């Protein structure tokens, strides 16, 4: 059991982080805290992808010999996985866009109801 | 290990020592201003020292001349930015604290 834990501690931490974020999104009452939870959830997913693309003993995915590199054989195992990185670049940018929209909405909601507290806002709205 | 490596080790130790001092100061100093002071001063100095260690290491392990020069240049730029940025940020935080009326620590206030 302990051996397995150490072998996969990376993925376990990933799941823990994601669940912290999900819990904040579902159960926290404060709107800003919900936004933070959303960002934490997204970084958890990004960590998941990045750790599946990591390789032991690899270097950055930047090939040497810039101008006539085509003549050298490239061993893929020596370089970190570029594909997961691209996917996560996209995910980061999408994440910050969503965060911006969520924060904007939170700010507007606050100005209407003078509170970030979800229950209080709902009380006010149902009046 | 060449002499430059030893110098790098020396710098690293010095940097870590000052970082430790910063951390202790941040925790142990009595009020807002002194804590920020510790963070601003110690942080900057120890970053400088560690960057110097990096430069020494890069020079002693260099393979191609141009690459090392570029690397050292980049490290110098980082040092420059830390040198400008860190004290300014500390100043901004302190100034904001002063404007909004955070009180000083006095000897007789420390019970």
């Amino acid at each position: 059991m302990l051996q397995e834990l150490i072998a996969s501690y990376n993925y376990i931490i990933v799941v823990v982080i994601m669940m912290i974020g999900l819990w904040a999104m579902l159960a926290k009452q404060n709107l800003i805290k919900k936004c933070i939870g959303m960002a934490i959830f997204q970084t958890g997913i990004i960590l998941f992808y990045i750790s599946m693309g990591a390789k032991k003993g690899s270097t950055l995915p930047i090939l040497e010999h810039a101008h006539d590199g085509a003549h050298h054989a490239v061993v893929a195992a020596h370089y970190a996985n570029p594909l997961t990185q691209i996917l996560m670049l996209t995910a980061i940018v999408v994440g910050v866009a969503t965060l911006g929209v969520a924060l904007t909405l939170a700010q507007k909601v606050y100005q209407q109801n003078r509170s970030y507290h979800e229950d209080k806002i709902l009380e006010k709205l149902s009046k | 290990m060449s002499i430059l490596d030893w110098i790098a080790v020396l710098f690293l130790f010095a940097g870590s020592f000052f970082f430790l001092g910063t951390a202790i100061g941040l925790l142990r100093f009595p009020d807002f201003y002194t804590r920020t002071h510790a963070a601003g001063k110690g942080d900057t100095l120890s970053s400088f020292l560690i960057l110097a260690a990096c430069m020494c290491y890069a020079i002693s392990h260099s393979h191609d001349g141009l690459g090392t020069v570029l690397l050292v240049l980049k490290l110098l730029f980082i040092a420059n930015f830390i040198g400008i940025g860190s004290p300014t940020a500390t100043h901004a935080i302190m100034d904001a604290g002063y404007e909004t009326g955070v009180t000083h620590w006095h000897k007789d206030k420390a019970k």
Partner: protein
Amino acid sequence: MSTQAPVLMIIAPLIASIFITLIGWFRPKFSHPIAVISLLISSIASIQVFQMVLSNGPQQYFLGNWPAPFGIEYVIDHLNSLLLVTISVVATLVALYAKRSVEKELPDKLANYYTLFVLLVTGLLGISITGDAFNLYVLLEIAALTSYALIAFAKGRSLMATFNYVMMGSIGACFYLLGVGYLFIKTGTLNMTNLSQILVSLHMSQAVLVGFVLIILGMWVKMAFFPVHGWLSNAYTYAPTASTCLIAPLMTKVSVYVMIRVMTSVFSTEYVFNHLSWHLVVVAMASVAILVGSMMALSQRDLKKCMTYLVVAEIGYMVGGAWLGNPAGMTGATYHIIADAAMTACLFMAVGCIIYKHGHTSLDTMKGIFRKMPLTMLGFVVGMLSMIGVPPTCGFFSKWYLISGAIEAGQWHFMLALLFSSLVNAIIFFRIIEIGFFGSLGSETPDPHEHQDVAVKEAPLSMVLPMLVVAGALIGIGIYTSDIISLVIQPLISATF
């Protein structure tokens, strides 16, 4: 140019959105024509693609000319070609319809509104056409972000509703992305065709199972399937009229499409129904969804809110049909995607017309509405009849296939739920008839000879006409049902079962 048609239909709205922003900053009134033109282009392109698929079978398009698993690929088969036509045509009609209502509700935001409007259509078309699991995520986020903004443009209560929608929408998207990650870690590819080839040998893998469940869960959150349907009603009710007309018919249907696509193309029906064999639970959940949606709809005193709960019930139809596990159910579900898109569009457009003239849609104030707005109510009646399932409207045929699928699978509760939902729809319909037709305008008793007194206050023609076109389409789709089934849905079903 015809070979470029698949990408043209995505790119036309995207580029139009840029020009709407650029030109609309200086001349806001040009933004509407640009939007309509771009959507027309994409409708024509989608019809062209549809004909290509009908005559030549499934089409592929390689973006950037990179071969399939390495670049991003478009795959257009029978299922999504029809959906593409539906989305682009409905969007064009809604764009025509939107002109007056947006001018009235959001006069100072025309350029922003139409920019997001066409980008939402880009996102929906892109989700439907793409053959790459991650590209789908990006487009899902485009569609989601645009719809958040389109809903939040109406101030007031819509803001909090949108905030909840943002939270649920991001949970759904994150689950989808995570599910794709679980598949990706086992297969190393994102291309759907390639995924399905590799997954055949991985059916026993736990990671693949978790990935599948996560994707389906994510889509359920996105489409507001039963336990997580809470956000939908408020978000759709408080949105601007034109936004509801665009988002309510298309957004949820596209999520259903993604679910069916993942079930049939990425995985196989053999995996979903034989290997996992908990589809019965899902059908039961769908029955509950239909019941809950119908009951909630029945208890509303506001027409628009009532309609949003009907959307929840309709989602139960499609999910249940897709998970019945037999060809009839799947036929019903896929057919219902098209039919329901048209039905909901028709109903929400009619409701929008009422809001335009009336200001609100509280049932109590709709007395005499049939006399005031006869054309609007004609569209509403056709839409509602289709919702109930009266032939020859298309709602009848989808319900027919769904019910026969339920009987074939022995899922009696699903059949009962369908019938119950029809009954509720009929009750709602007759209640509106009662209030709107027989309800008196003033205090005096209704008199059939006094019709002349009531001034006809119809919504503008640019709103009524698109709605009537959709209403006509409801009957048209119903009449050509056999063609649609045999030409479009049958090839799909025979490929999957």
